[in-house]
């Protein structure tokens, strides 16, 4: 799967780089002499946050001789508790990546020309004003992966009158969030450290890194907790587990329904909790009769006696027992039944009486930032709904209006609904399903502006590319990502001067607004805005800058209060769902597609993260890619017996083919994978020629996925794909 990338004219690059020759010699070319001289030089330590993934861990960055040396975890941070993952260490080197762009770029006759910021802003504003006249503000969108400036991106869209602010959520977690919302009113966390029995379904915090969760699992184990991992693949968290349940992919719902069945039939649930704090138990009893463990065994390949035994063990530890709240795998955006699977997972937790309990599922304390108004009046909200149908009955009523359905953007562009887009801290051409369709959609836009330090796939088809700063080069908006037993605020800070002519995300948003004539909504400096946002929290910007992270507000207490659901209780049965035409109680629902049992070449394609890569963002980083290569990790995992049946040996090249894509990749044979599927690590398959380390290494699961929207929240159903695997 490749597009033909555009050419950068050499002349324009030279022009662009002339500005920053000084920075170049310090940063890019001279690691060796820097390293030699550095042994004895003084070191500065600056607290900031990591940009290696969405966790935004609190770090200390160490600078020697003006160059970033290393990072350490901030021990105070809820989210990383003093430790860091490999990306946290490795991604810092991307600051000095020679693939970085050096000035704003404009596409002219198929190649990029370096232009000034002023020219870029002026031309973008002119084009947008024409688009506004012809098509209205709803034709403009912004899409980003979560980051600390998102409130300002949303404000920019609202200032223009557009509802179309999107995140990557529909390819990631929207089914999970919706299910928890309908069951307990919001998305909770897991009190892993104090749990006695931890079951994790389709989530792998040791690979799709969540550092604090792994630390907490280890703490719980040291206190004698049992850990069970449910995943078609023996994932990295399973290494820490007492038991691995290799569920047949797409059938986690059957397992969970059977566990609920056992809890109900054997009366193992928390009776007082169910009586006082839930609605719909009688309806649940009626429905769940249909799902005994013997039934589930035939569907999900987990033996009935295992289901019964583990349900009993889990219930024995209640309420200090939990099923992890989940993320992407199984319940986030994977299967037709993901929403119901997430509902079943939430309900099973509630039956344990563990909601907002120590060692159970709890509602973390999260910092509520202050408003910019009245000092800086907010724009009126957009007039209409989102064109993707989120929140609209008959379309995607359960969909997340806030996140939108971002993988629908290409469809909306092809239909002419969206005309102009901003892509920031995101690369949909590589991270959305069915790249041919995504490319066609994004190319249809009258104006595509991408803010990125490098020419990602998406940037390389943009009309304008604005070089955003690398995360260690800029002060940005205060952030609330570190929720937990006590809320924390963090601040991304400038650690070194920006290389090249790049600008911070915050600055670019403000500059765009002023060029678009809506600067009155952005008449503040970053410091002023940050101060206003911190005001209600009772901490000062000065203290936050000095420490990098500060605790705010009260400490979490266990106890059950009124929930944000219509009944104020846990909704085992949801009349709200019933009114919208969905089952009130989760029912078994088969996956949309299944491999053909009789065809030895037919497999479900599933995917997951390796600890060393984040989406498509880190594959171009030589320190991280060196690990992929040294340990031969750019391979398709396949069950050993299935592989042998089709003549594949370890290390052979296989050909994979789906309805929409095909590719070749070497295989790794393992006993640690369910025979019905093959597993592809995410993060590879970079096809932008401007990313020289990552280019053409491995494949992405997105190459094989058709464009799908599940009927509840409109998520991408990213494991509903069957592939043919053959020896190449």
């Amino acid at each position, binding site marked *: 799967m490749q597009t033909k990338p555009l050419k950068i004219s050499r002349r324009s690059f030279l022009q662009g780089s002339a500005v920053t020759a000084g920075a170049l010699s310090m940063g890019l070319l001279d690691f060796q002499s820097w390293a030699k001289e550095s042994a004895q030089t003084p070191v500065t330590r600056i607290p900031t946050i990591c940009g290696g993934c969405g966790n935004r861990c609190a770090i200390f960055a160490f600078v020697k001789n003006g160059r970033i040396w290393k990072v350490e975890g901030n021990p105070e941070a809820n989210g990383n508790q003093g430790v860091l993952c490999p990306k946290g260490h490795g991604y810092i080197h991307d600051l000095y990546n020679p693939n970085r762009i050096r000035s704003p770029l404009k596409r002219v006759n198929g190649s990029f020309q370096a232009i000034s910021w002023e020219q870029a802003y002026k031309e973008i504003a002119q084009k947008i004003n024409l688009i506004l006249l012809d098509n209205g503000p709803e034709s403009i969108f912004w899409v980003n992966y979560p980051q600390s400036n998102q409130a300002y991106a949303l404000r920019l869209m609202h200032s223009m009158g557009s509802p179309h602010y999107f995140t990557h959520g529909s390819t990631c977690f929207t089914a999970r969030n919706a299910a928890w919302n309908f069951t307990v009113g919001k998305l909770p966390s897991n009190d892993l450290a104090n749990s006695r029995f931890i079951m994790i379904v389709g989530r792998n915090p040791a690979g799709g890194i969540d550092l604090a969760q792994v*630390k907490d699992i280890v703490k719980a184990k040291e206190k004698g907790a049992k850990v069970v991992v449910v995943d078609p693949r*023996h994932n990295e968290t399973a*290494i820490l587990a007492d038991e691995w349940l290799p569920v047949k992919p797409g059938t986690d719902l059957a397992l969970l329904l059977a566990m609920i069945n056992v809890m109900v039939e054997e009366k193992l649930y928390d009776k007082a909790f169910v009586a006082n704090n839930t609605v719909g138990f009688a309806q649940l009893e009626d429905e769940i009769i249909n799902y005994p463990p013997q039934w589930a065994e035939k569907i999900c390949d987990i033996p009935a006696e295992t289901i019964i035994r583990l349900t009993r063990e889990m219930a024995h530890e209640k309420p200090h027992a939990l099923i992890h709240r989940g993320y992407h795998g199984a319940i986030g955006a994977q299967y037709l039944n993901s929403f119901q699977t997430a509902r079943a997972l939430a309900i099973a937790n509630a039956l344990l009486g563990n909601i907002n309990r120590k060692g159970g599922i709890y509602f973390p304390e999260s910092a509520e930032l202050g408003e910019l108004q009245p000092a800086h009046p907010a724009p009126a909200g957009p007039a209409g709904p989102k064109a993707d149908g989120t929140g609209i009955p008959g379309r995607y009523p359960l969909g997340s209006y806030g996140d939108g359905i971002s993988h629908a953007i290409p469809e909306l562009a092809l239909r002419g609904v969206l005309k102009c887009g901003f892509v920031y801290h995101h690369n949909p051409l590589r991270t959305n399903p069915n790249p041919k369709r995504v490319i066609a959609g994004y190319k249809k836009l009258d104006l595509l502006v991408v803010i990125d330090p490098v020419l990602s796939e998406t940037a390389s088809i943009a009309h304008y590319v604005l070089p955003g700063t690398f995360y260690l080069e800029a002060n940005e908006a205060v952030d609330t990502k570190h929720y937990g037993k006590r809320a924390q605020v963090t601040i991304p800070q400038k650690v070194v001067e920006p290389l090249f002519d790049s600008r911070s995300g915050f600055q670019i948003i403000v500059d765009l607004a002023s060029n678009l004539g809506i600067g009155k909504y952005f008449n503040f400096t970053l410091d002023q805005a940050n101060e206003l946002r911190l005001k209600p929290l009772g901490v000062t910007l000065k203290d936050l800058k000095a420490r990098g992270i500060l605790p705010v507000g009260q400490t979490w207490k266990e106890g059950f209060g009124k929930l944000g659901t219509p009944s104020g209780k846990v909704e085992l049965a949801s009349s709200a769902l019933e009114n919208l035409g969905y089952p009130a109680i989760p029912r078994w629902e088969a996956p949309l597609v299944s491999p053909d049992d009789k065809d030895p070449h037919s497999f479900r394609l599933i995917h997951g993260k390796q600890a060393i890569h984040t989406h498509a963002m880190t594959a171009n980083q030589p320190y991280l890619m060196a690990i992929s290569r040294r340990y031969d990790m750019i391979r398709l995992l396949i069950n050993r*017996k299935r592989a042998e049946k089709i003549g594949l040996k370890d290390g052979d090249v296989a050909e994979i083919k789906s309805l929409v894509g095909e590719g070749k990749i070497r295989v790794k044979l393992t*006993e640690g994978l369910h025979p019905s599927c093959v597993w592809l690590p995410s993060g590879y398959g970079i096809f932008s020629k401007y990313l020289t380390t990552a280019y053409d290494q491995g494949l992405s699961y997105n190459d094989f996925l058709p464009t799908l929207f599940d009927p509840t929240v409109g998520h991408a159903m990213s494991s509903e794909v069957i592939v043919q695997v053959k020896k190449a």
Partner: protein
Amino acid sequence: MARYGMVIDETKCVGCYACRVACQNQNHLRENEAYNYLEEREFGQFPHFNREFLPIQCQHCDNPPCVSVCPTGASHKRKDGVVLVNEKDCIGCKYCIAACPYNVRIIKQEGYIEKCRFCIDFVEEGGKPACVTTCMTGVRMFGDLDDPTSAIAQFIARNGHHLRVLKREMNTKPRILYRKA
């Protein structure tokens, strides 16, 4: 004088490679130069399956074969137990690489031999080795084996029967002890 050593808990490594990159940064290494590595092993047959990652680095042996074969004395053992290479004296003959049973020595692009230094400069300033502090599961423990109050000495006292050394038959007397799976 301290006598430094390390315990590596074989049951806890999840194969994330944070220790590799943290070490590279701490020691100014290039992307293909690493002082530690992982060996992955798989056990059993589907669905009764398990695997483990074994972190390996210079074992700071008390009877180090790399030191005895070094013709210039560049490879040496310090009083505090740390085995080091003095880059100025190293002539790049690679005898030590052949002699080391643990495959932990690398050839630097500059031509001399290097390996895990127990982050000793940083430790002497009061720090802890980068591979120890970054690890989310707490695989490594580092400290003074001679100080009975140190966490590592107490761990060794409590877990004697769970400990092993790599390639004991080579009689290298490693100062990295592994807590067995």
